[in-house]
């Protein structure tokens, strides 16, 4: 039996049926990590003592007694004295940490190349990026180095690498999951979420990690529990015309259009919708996010933990500078406040669109994975790769990336967006699509 090829749901079933033991499960994964991690650089740390269901954790989520670097030199030797809430919740459900995964420094990047510990490689083609910033988590799931992984998503950092690596990724609604113990990047946007081998797996992990803990004041909604409801035929799928314009790769567009046709075949009613302020999303995001970044990263002063500020990498410095500038005296109204107002317009776009449809679908990323090094020296072109993932982040709504085919041999992800706290319907649509297709079963040859 190919133990590491199983999804989380299948693994739980196999354990229950005593097809293998937890020890055998961990041995199988540890062996696979041993043979593949040098190639992929997905894990920064491997826990040989893992004895539960082996999950990979993005190294920006603090783990008691286990070094947590956030992909930065600054925290090279940081050993957290406490666990993030999500870690405690996973361990209550029998999960153990098999390793901490690589990421863009402090979760800032779209390619995994901003890590101080070297770039992660895409399991589908080692010369290409895996996406970011949850680069190691997505690559680890795609290469079957863990049963599932946790990532964090601020402007696309779960969904985009999941799409580029051909796995499932969920950014929950803002406030769905407590961020206690997730090293903060941009606090009005950050969310923790699962990267998994199937939609059912993502749903299960969300049930485990969601809910109030009293330590994240934006997290005030009870734990997510999936109701056993079926999707009604005639469910309305909105397709925003702004998501199919300039910049979208033609091959990717073909794959996405085919996926939409499939949804129609499965009973969906396809409705064209409009999100007219999409064009401003990246500009607003880079002001809001960078402003919050410069405030959050102010805590790294080398006094209570970590090394001094000269150890920040290039992207972190760039964003600290941009944020500090946009909040500085004389520029606040023109930049931060303006961006915050545009954010409201983007949220209203979604509210209007959701009056006509139940979910919105489109591409996760305008292209498939690009070559390592290709965009490193041009930050703006890298930022523009987040054009479809950023607007829902600004609106705080949930987004699911589901494998929906290949373009030029590289995976493409279908983005399924729901209303605020509307995870249930995006899971339903995702599952109906997944059950009718075999894309999620495709594995990279390693």
């Amino acid at each position, binding site marked *: 039996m190919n133990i590491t090829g199983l999804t989380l749901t299948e693994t739980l079933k196999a354990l229950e049926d005593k097809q293998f033991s937890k020890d055998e499960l961990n041995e199988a994964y540890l062996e696979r990590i041993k043979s593949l991690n040098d190639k992929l650089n997905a894990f920064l740390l491997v826990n040989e003592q893992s004895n539960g269901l082996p999950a990979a954790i993005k190294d920006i989520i603090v783990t008691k007694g286990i070094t947590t670097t956030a992909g930065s030199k600054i925290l090279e030797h940081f050993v957290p004295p406490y666990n993030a809430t999500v870690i405690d919740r996973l361990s209550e459900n029998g999960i153990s940490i098999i390793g901490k995964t690589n990421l863009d420094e402090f979760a800032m990047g779209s390619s995994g190349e901003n890590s101080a510990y070297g770039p992660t490689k895409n399991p589908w083609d080692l010369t290409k990026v895996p996406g970011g910033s949850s680069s190691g988590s997505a690559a680890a799931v795609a290469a079957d180095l863990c049963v599932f992984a946790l990532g964090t998503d601020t402007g696309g950092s779960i969904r985009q690498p999941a799409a580029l690596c051909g796995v499932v990724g969920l950014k929950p609604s803002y406030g769905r999951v407590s961020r*206690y113990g997730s090293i903060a990047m941009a606090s009005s946007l950050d969310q923790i979420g699962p990267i998994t081998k199937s939609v059912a797996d993502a749903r299960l992990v969300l049930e485990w990690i969601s809910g109030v803990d009293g330590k994240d*004041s934006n997290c005030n909604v009870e734990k997510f529990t999936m109701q056993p409801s079926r999707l009604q035929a005639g469910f309305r799928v909105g397709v925003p015309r702004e998501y199919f314009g300039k910049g979208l790769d033609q091959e990717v567009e073909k794959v996405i259009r085919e996926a939409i046709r499939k949804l129609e075949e499965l009973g969906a009613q396809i409705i064209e919708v409009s999100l007219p302020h999409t064009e401003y999303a990246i500009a607003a995001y880079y002001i809001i996010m960078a402003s919050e970044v410069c405030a959050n990263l102010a805590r790294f002063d080398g006094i209570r933990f970590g090394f001094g500020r000269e150890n920040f990498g290039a992207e972190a410095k760039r964003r600290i500078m941009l944020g500090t500038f946009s909040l500085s005296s004389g520029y606040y109204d023109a930049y931060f406040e303006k961006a915050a107002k545009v954010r*409201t317009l983007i949220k209203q776009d979604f509210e209007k669109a959701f009056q006509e449809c139940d979910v919105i679908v489109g591409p996760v990323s305008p292209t498939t994975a690009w070559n390592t090094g290709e965009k490193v020296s041009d930050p703006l072109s890298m930022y523009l790769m987040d054009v479809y993932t950023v607007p829902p982040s600004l609106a705080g709504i949930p987004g699911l990336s589901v494998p929906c085919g290949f373009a030029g041999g590289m995976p493409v992800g279908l983005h399924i967006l729901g209303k605020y706290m509307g995870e249930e319907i995006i899971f339903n649509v995702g599952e109906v699509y997944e059950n009718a297709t075999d894309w999620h079963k495709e594995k990279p040859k390693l």
Partner: protein
Amino acid sequence: MSRMKLSKDQVKHVAKLANLPLTENEEEKYGEQLSEILEYIDQLNRADTPGVATYNVSGQENVMAKDEVGNCTLPQEDALANASKKRQGFFVTKGVFEQ
């Protein structure tokens, strides 16, 4: 908001506000890159925003913690475990005033 080109002095000023030690090369590089990014951001000017309010996406407002010791405090030893310099159970910081 007009076309924004950051001067070298502005870059130095922002770096000082951010407490970010930059090399001369970095000052130059970030000056150029930030100018390019700000130029892109200028398009926000085209969005019509009079009367638009700002908001918190979770809808939460003024969430207060109870005025009590919660369950997320750390023992002193743990809190100090990652400090580069400590003395008698305290963090050692740089002096604020000249001696």
